[in-house]
């Protein structure tokens, strides 16, 4: 435990995007020779914090100290100059060049590249860190793990002292992940500082010297893994104590089944069983990347079920999606509202007509007049501001854009709605509006809500399902308090026995 000045010290860093608080009064020490893990859900502020360190964003307030001296990281070059390097989730490699060229890019001081001497230097470096790569191989032929090694070598070659890894294992096979961890330990042993961003609990526990848990832009906990913490406890702390959200909620009598999933496997899913009835809102919670995406994409027709059956409104998956008419009774509200859900360069009317042409067409022609009138009413009913159909989608704030997507989808009177992280990145007022609309839509449809926010799930759901490693571990009623208390453990993949060993009492309203 070094008592010296930390390599990097963050003091009271804050950054907001409009009304949304990305990170809030974060103070953090990063020491040489140590691996610091930043643990947090999507949207917890991890990437913002990282961009501040990489010089891509400037904090609204707070300061960054390097070896005890205050620095301003206002450009990528500056961050590089100070020895801060980043291994991005999406590699920044030139596919058509070879490994060596990628590593020496921007690094040679001489006008002419002395390939043989540079190659020898890189080879030496790779050997020191136990990395084995053919330096003359073009990048395009490498595996993801090898590409990541090139990224690491790039940073080591430019003598970075701090290496930040953004979810580095997301693209790796387990074997490659083990290699990566070995390299990370090697780097820490050679007095580099490592920051490791992840939401995979077990790997964080196995590799990190320190763990900081980020939630809604704040560090809510700092943990020393040597304290013998179980993944369950870690999950509990990461999820935190759910703040009870006050949402007006009326019970709706469940009616006929709209979705029945039986023994669905493949694409990372394992024997999913699930039934949803009209009038029900089922939340799927879990740490991101545990199969939620695959399940949603299968239900919404983006990928066919490999094994098992999916029946939507009583029809088999293939029949349902073959029939254009019945397909309109399903609404998908994707996580990516600016990419998948809307076209940012089109006006609101065109965006409205993207999925909702029924009733506005005659042969090949669109009745824009009629659709326009309808949209005016929807803009008013859903309180979308500014209520101007001629605006382009990009001119709307995130909350208003999301409301437009909901208005469009609900207008079709769907019987089954699948909403992915519908309130992510929205401020609280906009989020409440979205919650109200979802609960209202429940009267005519069955809703699946995928969320990383347990509080949101608890406030809205009739039932909650927990996903872990492609399994739907359990589904429970909102009234089953005993099971709800165990959700954090389930998210960490722990069974009943282990649960009994944890001595922490859940504090719940």
């Amino acid at each position, binding site marked *: 435990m070094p008592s010296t000045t930390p390599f990097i010290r963050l003091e009271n860093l804050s950054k907001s995007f409009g009304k949304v608080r990305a990170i809030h009064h974060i103070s953090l020490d990063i020491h040489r020779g140590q691996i610091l893990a930043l643990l947090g859900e999507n949207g917890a502020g991890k990437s913002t914090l990282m961009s501040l360190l990489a010089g*891509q964003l400037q904090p609204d307030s707070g300061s960054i100290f390097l070896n005890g001296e205050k620095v301003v990281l206002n450009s990528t070059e500056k961050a*590089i100059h100070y020895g801060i390097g980043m291994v991005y989730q999406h590699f920044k490699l030139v596919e058509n060049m070879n490994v060596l060229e990628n590593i020496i890019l*921007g690094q*040679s001081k*001489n*006008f002419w590249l002395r390939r043989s001497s540079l190659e020898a230097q890189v080879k030496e470096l790779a050997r020191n860190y136990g990395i084995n790569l053919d330096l003359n191989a073009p990048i395009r032929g490498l595996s993801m793990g090898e590409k990541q090694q090139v990224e690491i070598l790039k940073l080591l070659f430019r003598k970075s002292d701090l290496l930040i890894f953004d979810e580095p294992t997301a693209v790796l096979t387990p074997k490659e992940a083990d290699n990566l961890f070995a390299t990370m330990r090697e780097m820490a042993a050679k007095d580099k500082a490592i920051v490791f961003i992840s939401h995979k609990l077990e790997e964080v526990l196995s590799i990190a010297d320190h763990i900081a848990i980020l939630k809604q832009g704040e560090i809510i906990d700092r943990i020393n893994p040597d304290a013998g913490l179980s993944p369950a406890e870690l999950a509990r702390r990461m999820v935190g104590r759910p703040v009870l959200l006050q949402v007006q909620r009326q019970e709706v009598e469940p009616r006929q089944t709209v979705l029945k999933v039986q023994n669905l496997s493949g694409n990372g899913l394992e024997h999913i069983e699930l039934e949803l009835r009209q009038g029900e809102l089922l939340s799927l919670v879990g740490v991101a990347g545990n199969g939620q995406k695959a399940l949603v994409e299968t239900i919404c027709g983006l990928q066919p079920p490999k094994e098992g059956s999916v029946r939507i409104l009583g029809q088999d998956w293939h029949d349902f999606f073959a029939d254009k008419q019945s397909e309109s009774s399903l609404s998908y509200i994707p996580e990516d509202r600016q990419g998948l859900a809307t076209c940012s360069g089109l006006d609101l009317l065109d965006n409205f007509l993207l999925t909702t042409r029924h009733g506005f067409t005659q042969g090949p022609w669109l009745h824009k007049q009629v659709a326009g009138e309808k949209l005016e009413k929807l803009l008013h009913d859903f309180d979308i501001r500014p209520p101007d159909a001629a605006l382009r989608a990009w001119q709307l704030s995130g909350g208003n854009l999301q409301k437009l997507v909901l208005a469009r989808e609900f207008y079709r009177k769907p019987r089954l709605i699948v909403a992915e992280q519908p309130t992510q990145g929205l401020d609280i007022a906009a989020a409440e509006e979205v919650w109200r609309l979802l609960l209202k839509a429940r009267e005519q449809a069955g809703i699946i809500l995928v969320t990383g926010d347990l509080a949101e799930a608890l406030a809205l759901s009739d039932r909650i399902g927990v996903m872990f490693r492609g399994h739907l571990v359990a589904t429970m009623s909102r009234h089953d308090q005993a099971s709800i208390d165990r959700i954090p453990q389930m998210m960490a993949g722990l069974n009943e026995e282990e649960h009994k060993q944890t001595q922490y009492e859940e504090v719940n309203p």
Partner: protein
Amino acid sequence: MNTELLIPLLAAAVVSGTPILYATLGEIITEKSGVLNLGVEGAMMMGCFTAFITAKLTGQPWLAFFAAGLAGLLTASLHGVICLVFQGNQVVSGLALTIFGAGLANYLGTPYIGLAAPGFSPVPIPGLAHIPVLGPILFNHDPLVYLSYLAPFAVGIFFRHSRFGLSLRSVGEFPAAALAAGLNATAYRWAGILAGGFFMGLGGAYLSLAYTHLWTNNLTAGRGWIAVALVIFAFWRPGRAVFGAYLFGGIMALQLRLQAGGTSLPSSLLLMLPYALTVAVLLFSCWRQGTRAPANLGVNIEPSS
């Protein structure tokens, strides 16, 4: 065809291929940085006229040659302003540049049509010029041709073995990687556009200083477009551009000879030959393998938010 006819034809192929070679190298440099400049013809025309007028006024061919390079560079800099400063569409900007450059050069040159200016004449290289066959084909030309022998190697070595060349290529392939390495991607694109424009201007200069020694309208006659096509044919490799340029030079020379020899083929059909070959070459290149264009060719760098 016997050697008495073939050797002069091949020598003529080298001469008519030289301006295309300069222009093709210019476009390769530009495209390697990720910028598509379809204004080659415009930059060549500006270079062509500038060379002519400089030589006419000063009587100094070498000065005229480099002035033409500068004229090409300045013309291409418009492309840089539109595409790099204002994020304009590269295709549209390049087309406009062609029309603008050709139009301006023709307009400025109107009073000089048919007038001659001093230029370069063949200087046989002692010793080499007497090698049988190769001597007359390669070593009995003006100095600009000899310079063009060196240029592709220089450009190739520069791309492969200099720090600057590596960085420039990375900007054409994947600007995000260059940015992550702390390089100023936009500056490299400027360098690509300006250096490329310089070479295009040199290509134009060859036409008025060595190929004709006089000024007429539309001296470039579509050679700029041929250069654009040759870049693809050459798979963006300077060395291969040499073959392409001489192939086209050969067709142009052959076409002239056939006309002079009094063939029964209509002259307009013969004039069409190089352009028909352009289409054929493009088809061939695309069919032979998926093009190896720089991955971000023609894609502007989004200003970081």
